[in-house]
């Protein structure tokens, strides 16, 4: 039988003997013969455009029904069944007009059979003919009033038509017959929600979810109902769990329809849809069915390979691609995919011939050209890579990844300005490409263009999710801002970095330092505390914390921290010197202990005689009243290193020398935040 090209098959005219026989039979059956049922033509779909296996299937089934219809001995129930099954087949392939006619004929021939009006109701509902579907479902219920799927579908449909007074009783009835009918609970919940009865809605939604926990679709309306009730926590919880998995309805007749759609074309379509929706397992299964049905179809096999690759089954995907290439050796898509999978496995060099084969078959194959270029960049064949990328951009001037890849290639060849231009073009086309933006920011930073670097880093942190290393980008941004003297901005980004990754010690340390520069010493302390707890033997952290405490005038706490520090890091000369200076000259008199200060200073000076220890020793000597010895010590310092000191340090040393010579101790009159801090710490580390 050849594929029909006309809109519909005319019903064949019965041969004369058949007509005569029928007339005699009818006359014999009764004196007033019943009119034969009026059957409608089945509108024939355009078979020529379909997958051949599907077209053949439809053609065969239609021919079988026609043959039965023309059989003078056929019985109406059998023909009804045949039309019904044919309708299910069309239904499965979404050939709605043909399916509707077939179901109609089935119903005409067997008006007491339940499945046909029920299925036609489904069909009409899918077509959007809600009124027609309602009529069909009602007819089905006349024949089988306790059918739960019909009650549930009709009930829900009536709600959708704005007829809750008719729909809700049907749904209640469905629940009486099957209290586990989640679809009925869901529909009743929606009805309750519409009329503002949110508590009832919550109860029904929750029940539906208990019955079918996988139906993530329920979470969203449930969250909205909770929000309406003011239960924000429950609303947010369910909102976060929302999804698109629907409720199942046990439905043997529709199950048959779905099972029928098993041909190659349908499997391909469903496979494609599943793949697009990220349902990779389902996609693989659909494509497997298609391959089984048509094992020599290269396209089908390649689609299976793509789905397998998507599902992470690379080995089998490659095996399928090899078979595909045997069936269709020059196919560019297959070569390109094969190369891509090889590249994914790290076999970059092996992938190149495949990409080249794809390009030979189709010189304008943009994806293959791009993939080849990517491989060449990896293999550091930059000239070749850029030649192919130029070609990609010739074909498609809007290819953002080609610009980005060319930029990376140019950067690898140290052509930074050109690379920057390409990154900019890539981002103009695809602003959400965070990697390219980060690269551009780094490049700009490397080129000393802090303004562009800052601007781009800002965009990166605005766009990148926390899981993608945003903390480090925030840190880089903060560092740049600090260099640009935007200390508030730096603090903000150090904090953002730490919010994403609290273990980023360098960010915390520099945050503390920057806060110190801003004079926010109270905010500095918690940061140093966290750093100290994470690294108790880090001298620099303890010195930073000590600095902040000193600036805040919290000398008692400072003494305690220095004592703890010396215990944790006994070898730290700096901490010892600080403690000695504090014990010598603390503005808080009760903390002074000149004798201990002198002992510590002596010990430090003997261990490492340098400017800080020498100055500290002089300070301690003065504190114990040994002004002459202090003056001698200070003079020695000036004689030894005076010419090498910066003017500020020189002034300080000379001032203190005069104090000692006048019989005065150093620094006791200086309060927190002033020069005392320079004396205590400045000579060692400076304020920052």
């Amino acid at each position, binding site marked *: 039988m050849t594929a029909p090209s006309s809109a519909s098959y005319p019903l064949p005219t019965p041969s004369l003997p058949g007509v005569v026989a029928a007339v005699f039979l009818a006359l014999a059956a009764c004196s007033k013969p019943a009119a034969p049922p009026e059957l409608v033509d089945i509108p*024939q*779909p355009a078979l020529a455009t379909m997958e051949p296996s599907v077209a053949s299937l439809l053609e065969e089934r239609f021919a079988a029904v026609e043959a039965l219809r023309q059989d003078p001995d056929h019985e109406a129930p059998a023909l009804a069944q045949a039309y019904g099954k044919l309708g299910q087949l069309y239904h499965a392939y979404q050939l709605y007009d043909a399916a509707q006619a077939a179901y109609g004929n089935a119903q005409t021939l067997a008006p007491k059979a339940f499945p046909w009006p029920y299925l036609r109701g489904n069909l009409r509902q899918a077509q959007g*003919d809600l009124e027609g579907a309602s009529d069909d479902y009602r007819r089905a219920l006349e024949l089988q009033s306790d059918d739960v799927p019909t009650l549930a579908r009709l009930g829900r449909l009536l709600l959708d038509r704005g007829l809750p007074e008719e729909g809700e009783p049907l749904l209640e009835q469905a629940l009486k017959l099957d209290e586990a009918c989640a679809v009925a609970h869901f529909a009743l919940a929606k009805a309750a929600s519409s009329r503002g009865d949110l508590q009832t809605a919550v109860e029904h939604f929750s029940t539906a979810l208990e019955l079918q926990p996988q139906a993530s679709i329920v979470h969203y309306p449930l969250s*909205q109902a909770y929000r309406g009730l003011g239960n924000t926590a429950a609303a947010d919880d369910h909102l976060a769990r929302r999804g698109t998995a629907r409720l199942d309805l046990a439905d043997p007749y529709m199950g048959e329809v779905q099972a029928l759609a098993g041909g190659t074309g*349908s499997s391909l379509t469903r496979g494609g849809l599943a793949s697009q929706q990220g349902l990779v397992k389902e996609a693989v299964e659909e494509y497997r069915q298609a391959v089984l049905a048509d094992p020599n179809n290269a396209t089908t096999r390649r689609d299976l390979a793509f789905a397998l690759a998507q599902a992470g089954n690379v080995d089998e995907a490659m095996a399928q691609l090899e078979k595909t290439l045997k069936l269709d050796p020059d196919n560019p898509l297959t070569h390109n995919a094969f190369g891509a999978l090889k590249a994914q496995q790290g076999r970059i060099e092996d992938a190149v011939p495949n990409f080249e084969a794809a390009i030979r078959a189709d010189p304008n194959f943009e994806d293959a050209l791009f993939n080849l270029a990517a491989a060449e960049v990896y293999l550091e064949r930059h000239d070749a890579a850029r030649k192919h990328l130029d070609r990609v951009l010739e*074909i498609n001037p809007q290819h953002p990844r080609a610009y980005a890849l060319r930029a990376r290639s140019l950067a690898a060849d140290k052509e930074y300005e050109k690379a920057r231009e390409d990154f900019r073009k890539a981002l103009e*086309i695809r602003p959400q490409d965070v990697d390219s933006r980060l690269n551009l920011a780094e490049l700009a930073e490397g080129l000393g263009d802090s303004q562009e670097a800052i601007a781009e880093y*800002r965009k990166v942190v605005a766009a990148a999710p926390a899981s993608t290393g945003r903390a480090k980008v925030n840190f880089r941004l903060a560092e740049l801002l600090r260099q640009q003297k935007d200390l508030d901005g730096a603090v903000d980004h150090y904090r953002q970095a730490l919010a994403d990754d609290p273990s980023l010690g360098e960010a915390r340390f520099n945050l503390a330092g920057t806060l110190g520069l801003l004079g926010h010493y109270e905010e500095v302390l918690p940061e140093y505390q966290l750093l100290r707890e994470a690294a108790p033997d880090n001298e620099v952290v303890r010195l930073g914390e000590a600095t902040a405490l000193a600036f805040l005038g919290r000398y008692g706490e400072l003494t305690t921290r220095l004592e703890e520090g010396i215990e944790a890091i006994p070898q730290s000369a700096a901490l010892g010197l600080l403690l000695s200076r504090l014990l010598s000259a603390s503005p808080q008199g009760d903390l002074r202990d000149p004798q201990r200060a002198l002992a510590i200073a002596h010990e430090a000076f003997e261990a490492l005689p340098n400017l800080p220890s020498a100055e500290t020793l002089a300070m301690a000597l003065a504190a114990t009243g040994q002004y002459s010895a202090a003056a001698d010590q200070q003079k020695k310092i000036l004689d030894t290193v005076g010419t090498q000191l910066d003017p500020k340090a020189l002034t300080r040393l000379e001032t203190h020398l005069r104090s000692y010579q006048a019989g005065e101790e150093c620094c006791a009159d200086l309060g927190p935040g002033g020069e005392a801090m320079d004396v205590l710490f400045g000579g060692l580390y400076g304020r920052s």
Partner: protein
Amino acid sequence: MIDRFLALLPVALYLVSLTACSAPPPADSGVSAPERPPFVEDARGLGVEFTYFNGMVGDLHFAEVMGGGVAIFDHDGDGDLDLYFRQGRMLGDEAAEEALFPPQGPRPFSDRLYRNDLDRGQGLRFTDITATAGLGATGYGMGVTSGDYDGDGDLDLYLTNFGPNRLLANRGDGTFDDVTEISRTGDLRWSVPAVFFDYDRDGWLDLYIGNYVDLSPGTRKECRTETGARDYCGPSAFNGEPDRLLHNRGDGTFDDVTARAGLLTSTGPALGAVTIDFDDDGWLDLYIGNDGAANSLFRNRGDGTFEDLGLAAGSAVNADGLPEATMGIDAGDFDGDGDEDLFLAHLTRETNTVFKNLGGGIFLDDSVSSGLGAPSIEATTFGATWLDYDNDGWLDLVAVNGAVKQIESQARQGELYPLAQRNQLFRNLGEGRFEEVTQRAGAAFQAVEVSRGTAVGDLDNDGDLDLVVVNSNGPARLLENRVGLENSWIGFRVVGGERDRDMLGAWVGVFRPHRSPLWKRCRTTVSYASSSDPRVLFGLGKAAQIESLVVRWPDGTEETWPGLEAGRYHTLRQGDGTPRQENETP
């Protein structure tokens, strides 16, 4: 398709006239007496002969199903509304003659500008002045929006394309300059909606561009039906493209502030966009309709940044929690409670969706109760807009339809572009419910075509809203309103700045005796890919006057005016009214 329509038209009119001449039905028959059709279509008779040419050659290119839009705006400042149609072109290298629907109209293909000659005393009549206006954009046209971005008192145009976008600056003398490069408003991606709005209240219109999917020339996709037959792909076959927000610097240039504004997450395939102040905080928010992905409700935080509250506010997905294929959208106060509700146009087998604003930043999917959901399930609606076509004070709705997947019965009949559907008209019954009046809306609503963009405006300045509909591979339709004048009305042009710039975003309230106030926003971007009259027109029912009116300006200030004369348009200038204190009743 044109021939088919022309062949049907006389028959339809004949049937209508037969009905009209027959005796009225008995009072208890349940059949309403025939009504006067609210609209009469006569684009050709009025001088508008435009056919959107989609360049299809039979390879089922995704872009060819989308179609274009139209702008209704006063391009030459003569006080009447002109028409600007977007045009398609060939998608590949083939000659135009190879297209399945050979091109209609003048060559080369370009957008067309039709001047309204109403002011020349000849009644409503249009003249194609594309060439003299310095226009002739030849990209593959999608959307258009109008707004006075440079504050010089005339409306400029932003054109979105399947390809590079364009900004056309109105010189003020009826001609335009392409200022895309200098203004830095270009975008190479496939864009459809664009919105001018002043999000930061600096007095300059900024620009939001909604981008669709990545359909670059090398993309290879073949989509199939259940039977394995080729069919058009849907957006899920491609990657969505990110939208952009461009900040107007006030010197003729724009900065891309997408990232700074927190909008880089807006990567859904956008087909619709509309401004709305959903939380009534005085800052303009944005609602973005995505095709097959959750929609976004970007709340303007007032500090230059936005946050997407779509899901939490109940407006991102339908009542079942499912994203739908949103095309055209519009915002309007359909239930008269003083806040803006949303209408979203969707695919066949999805309902169109109404999100009713409950206040407090929460929306309810009201598609079923409103009566707008169920009748739409068989249709794929692209353009859709609220309009009070009968001036009774309640917003009605028009939905223009055309499928994106081949319709079985039409394909079987050998139609080359088997996507045609009937447009729909819904009348607001005033209780939050609508009735479909398509069947009695006259011949204009009986045609079966592939409609895409639609825009509204009072083309003949007579006080009721007319419609323009763009059809893909078919003639554009101009539907002149014939029933609005049965009720009273008042209209406003809302302007500000030194040169009377249309104040897009202004929220205008009309207070009536013994009735709740009516509210409308001054906006151009509505529906699908289209731009409507920025003036606001209020139907007043049988009321002969208004008590007062209020304007909340885009900068957040409010002014009141005393009762103004009904039955005419007034110009409201910022600064001319009386400053209004918070919560003060005018």
